[in-house]
């Protein structure tokens, strides 16, 4: 009996470490960035670490994070949905396993290798086959302005899209598989084609779960660092404001990666970077909490409905 009690409290204390680490982390982040946190910090656009002329504003990087994530979602989610539908509703058995394994492997590739590939291979493909045609024919539209170079916000967004596909597609697959078969049968029984069955019986039921999967993908995109830092072009301050997709840019995460080691540890610059880290964390937290609530709510209402 005593042994059991000791064991229980021992494991409990170890488990409590995550709570401690988490709390400690948030506190430290706040504490160390206090000196710079201000409205000017959040909404300012200039970034100048030179002592004497210091000015720190993160808005361009917030925008950079938002725009690259938006591209990632816009491109990655439809593809992920198509994959989820194909693998869960359409694929014959012998194809399903190998294909889903390949998609899973996409998640195993380290971010820095995505960056390497993005820098030396993908960016040329994007420039030649997408950016240059777009610039030639639609260059009058503001977001397509500028001579495309390859290392820009657009490429970063596309690389992010590839990186969120495994997450969004696998969560969506789970959501689709969880749709009760009775609904598919109901749709078949009124003479629906396979695609109509999917639309009527499956997708309408799975809508909120898929939305949750999307937000989860967004959460991942927001926090992605290395791959983005290697293809986004590393712009600073006002030049980093994403006025065109073909401009070089910067996200909150890539900024930290690019500048942290150069910042004098006791300087305001370092504190500013820590502040960026804090804002980044809050962003990721907000997005992921929303995803959790959506998914949790959809499970609850589904459970009530199919009783």
């Amino acid at each position, binding site marked *: 009996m005593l*042994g*059991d009690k000791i*064991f*229980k409290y021992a*494991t*409990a204390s170890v*488990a*409590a*470490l*995550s*709570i401690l*680490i*988490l709390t400690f*982390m948030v506190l*430290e*982040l706040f504490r*160390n960035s206090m000196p710079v946190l201000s409205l000017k910090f959040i909404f300012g656009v200039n970034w100048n670490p030179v002592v004497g002329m210091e000015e720190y504003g993160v808005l361009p990087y917030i925008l950079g994070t938002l725009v690259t994530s938006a591209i990632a979602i816009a491109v990655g989610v439809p593809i*992920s949905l*198509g*994959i989820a*539908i*194909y*693998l869960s509703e*359409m694929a014959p058995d012998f194809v399903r396993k190998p*294909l889903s394994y*390949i*998609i899973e*492997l*996409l998640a*195993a*590739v*380290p*971010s*820095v*290798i995505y960056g*390497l*590939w993005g*820098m*030396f291979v*993908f960016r040329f493909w994007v420039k030649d086959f997408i950016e240059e045609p777009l610039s030639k024919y639609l260059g009058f539209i503001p977001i397509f302005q500028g001579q495309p170079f390859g290392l820009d916000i657009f490429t970063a967004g596309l690389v992010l899209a*590839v990186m969120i*596909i495994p997450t969004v597609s696998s969560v969506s697959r789970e959501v689709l598989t969880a749709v009760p078969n009775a609904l598919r049968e109901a749709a078949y029984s009124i003479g629906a*084609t396979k*695609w*109509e069955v999917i639309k009527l019986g499956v997708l309408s039921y799975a809508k909120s779960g898929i939305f949750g999967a999307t937000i989860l993908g967004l*959460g991942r995109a927001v926090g992605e660092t*290395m791959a983005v830092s*290697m293809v986004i072009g590393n712009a600073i301050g006002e030049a980093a404001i994403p006025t065109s997709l073909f401009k070089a840019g910067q996200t909150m*995460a890539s900024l*930290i*990666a690019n500048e*942290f*080691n150069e910042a004098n540890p006791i300087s305001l610059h370092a504190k500013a970077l820590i502040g960026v*880290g*804090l804002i*980044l*964390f809050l962003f*990721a*937290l907000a997005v*992921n909490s929303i995803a959790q609530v959506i998914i949790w709510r959809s499970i609850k209402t589904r459970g009530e409905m199919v009783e």
Partner: protein
Amino acid sequence: MRLNDMENYKVRKFKNKIAYLACLSCTLIATMPLFSILIEVIKNGFPALNIDFFIKPPGAVGEPGGGIANAIQGTLILIGLTSLIGIPVGVLSGIFLAEFGDNNFGRLVRLSNNILTQFPSIVIGIFVYLVVVVPLGSFSPIAGAISLSIIMIPIVARTTEEALKLVPNSIREASMALGVSRWRTIISIALVSAKDGVVTGILLSIARITGETAPLIMTILGSQWFFSGLNAPMDSLTLRIWRLALQPYEYAHQQGWGAALVLISLVLFFNVSARILTRSKYRRM
């Protein structure tokens, strides 16, 4: 309704076909980056592999030659140190959650773990920089290991909890009915039954941390030399790839691809081992 049905029917059949092709294309399109990456890594990285590559540290910047031996060493040291911290903490947390965790405290722990997994890893690096590197006064492999453990622990805790939850309660009850104490039951009976699932989770988390770069930037910094003690910077495969890619020299890029080849082989090794373990587990069941 009968006559214009034919028109409508043909359209529906057409849409059905298109939907099928669209979804299939999405799946095939998604496989292309993977193949491209693997092909490029092998194509560009293989030529960089030679004896020197594996046994020498990098030469002076700008001078071809040298290798990534220190980076390989660094990654292996990190895997070792991180596992030393992350595996016991993760497994014990998982045990707690599965066996004693059905209460508010357990829910709080799960929530914290959940939030920790969503932390951008670079922010974890900042935290460890602030609480370990700064007080210590130097970059340190320990700091690197701590930051990677913070990533590893929630993963291992979750997979351990799930693996333990799959063990039917009847097994635990049978053991305790024989007079075995609860804690002994958990370790010798439940954990042993769940060991495949637990090990799979550990392998997958190791694969994950092997590929991490961001938190290492401000904890071990990276280095041109081999491991120089717990109070000095150290290199890792991931950091090396990053730095080599950013250098303006062709030879550096090629070395970067070579390092990527080594890294991806290491990551895939852990990943595939985990998968083989899962498959044999199902076959035995």
